[in-house]
């Protein structure tokens, strides 16, 4: 290769052998440091603001105090029972919303008159604050778990349905044509071709649906305070009503962490899906 260096720019050298050894530790580190940095940054800024004396600590408590409150909470059985109650409601409500939202989404995407009739209604329902449904929920279900689920489903199902619709709308027509040619009947067309193709938008819709479900749940849990059953939503409202700033912040942290964990689930599923489809480098 007696090439004249002046017009040649080296593009790349093969990776050295050491890179292969790095392995797991490096990977875990690469995954962990950004998170650690973010947490340290947030806590640091928060602490600095508190130190600056900008607001009295009874309205803006220090991270230390908040974490201490959180730690104290973690030690109580009541807290875990609240988490459990709330998570069970969330999962059941979300599962219901999933089934209903998916069914409605598929039907609306498929049946033109239905779409014209109720297509926009779906977003309309989505914009309705949970609180507006309370009276109806109570009239229909009384002060019962079902009233909470009703509010949760009304919150989450529309956004799941919208995810399905947008997913189906953007399925490449060539896939549908393929399905037709392969002789797929309606059910198999949707099961084998359209829905898998719509999966990315569907999962995005599910994430949004989860957020809606969770928000609606936090509101809905104020509806029904049921015998011997503390809940996160009630805790949040309680902290607020009693102006307990550290408790409020600690509860917000819990909500944030649960939200992030659930997002972790969704996004790792989305990632594996992308990897399968060659949309992401493994």
């Amino acid at each position, binding site marked *: 290769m007696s090439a004249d260096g002046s017009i040649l720019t080296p593009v790349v050298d093969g990776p050295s052998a050491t890179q292969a050894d790095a392995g797991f530790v490096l990977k875990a580190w690469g995954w962990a440091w950004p998170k650690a940095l973010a947490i340290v940054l947030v806590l640091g800024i928060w602490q600095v603001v508190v130190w600056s004396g900008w607001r009295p600590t009874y309205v803006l408590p220090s991270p230390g105090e908040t974490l201490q409150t959180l730690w104290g909470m973690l030690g109580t059985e009541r807290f875990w029972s609240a988490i459990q109650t709330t998570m069970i409601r969330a999962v059941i409500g979300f599962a219901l919303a999933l089934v209903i939202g998916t069914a409605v989404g598929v039907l609306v995407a498929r049946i033109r008159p239905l779409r014209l009739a109720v297509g926009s209604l779906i977003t309309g329902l989505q914009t309705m604050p949970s609180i507006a449904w309370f009276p109806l929920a109570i009239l229909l279900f*009384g*002060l019962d778990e079902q009233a909470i689920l009703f509010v949760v489903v009304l919150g989450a199902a529309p956004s799941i349905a919208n995810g399905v619709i947008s997913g189906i709308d953007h399925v490449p027509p060539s896939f549908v044509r393929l399905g037709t040619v392969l002789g797929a009947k309606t059910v198999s067309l949707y099961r084998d071709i359209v829905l898998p193709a719509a999966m990315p938008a569907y999962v995005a819709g599910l994430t949004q649906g989860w957020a809606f479900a969770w928000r609606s749940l936090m509101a809905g849990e104020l509806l029904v305070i049921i015998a*011997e059953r503390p809940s996160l939503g009630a805790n949040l409202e309680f902290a607020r*009503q009693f102006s*307990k700033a550290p408790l409020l912040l600690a509860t917000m942290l819990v909500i944030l962490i649960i939200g992030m964990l659930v997002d972790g689930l969704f996004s790792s599923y989305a990632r594996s899906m992308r990897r399968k489809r060659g949309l992401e480098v493994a």
Partner: protein
Amino acid sequence: SGASASSDRPDTANDVSTVRLGFFPNFTHAPALVGLQEGLFKAALKPLGVTVTPTAFNAGPDAVTALFADSLDIAYIGPNPTINAYVQSGGQAIKVIAGAASGGAALVVRPGITDAQGLKGRSIATPQLGNTQDVALRHWLQQQGLTATTEGGGDVSIRPQANAEGLAAYAAGTIDGAWVPEPWVSEYLKAGATVLVDEKSLWPEGRFVTTNIIVRTAFLDQHPDIVKAVLEGHLAALDAIANDPAAAKAAVNASLQGLTGSALEQDVLDQAWSQVEFTADPLPATLVASADHAVAVGLLDQGEIESAGGIPGTLYDLTAIDAVLKAAGKPAVSAP
């Protein structure tokens, strides 16, 4: 300095041009509504060259946060948020400077329930866990020998529930009564309920605090003159209410309509009005008793109260209202 709270904090400047007055678009805040509607605060503050910036709140916690955040100076507020603000700030942030309303709460139940024993196995709503009515109901049940846990168990199931949903739940048959303040008592009566216990009957002289006025401690320290002027306006409003109830009712409804788009039905308003007394007396003893009851039923933490300096501790500062009352030739209010 002016209304934009966060940038200019009035308590760091010596002069303020406006006082920020908080209240709820709520019937029991009638003195604030009438005073603002009729310009009584404005008139009282005029000599000081200070204007009033009214701020309506939907709920106590936001008003308390606003006070804590120096976004609000004086607020009409119920006894619960008062205790919470006092306790949570370690006794520092606020002081009660006057009363505004007394009375007007009752246990209403489904017709057919005629005594405490009739409540066994029933569900009763209260506006909110740990609020005055909630505490009152729990305390009363205790005295009647009935049990009720904070989680809704016991002989009587207490279901803390926003008032609007409470009424719907009553209509749907899931609750059998409620211990609520006016105008909700009147709404329940309209929906067919009957009064089982009028809270008045439980208090000496039939008076207990429903609304009082609190001030940011720092504001009171720096601007006692403004606080005094506001209380003059308050007194003028109380006089207006006493002198011409019909006009006052109209002013209240007009104000509610303007703020919320909703007003009370005339019959509900009349009925509720008859149950509430608007007074400058904050009735400290009743608040103290209520706090004790809350501790007794496990809804307030005695330790927290203690570290805030106890109740009443430094909660009350009635010098200004007494001065204003005196100037008007009226008797001073009861000290704690």
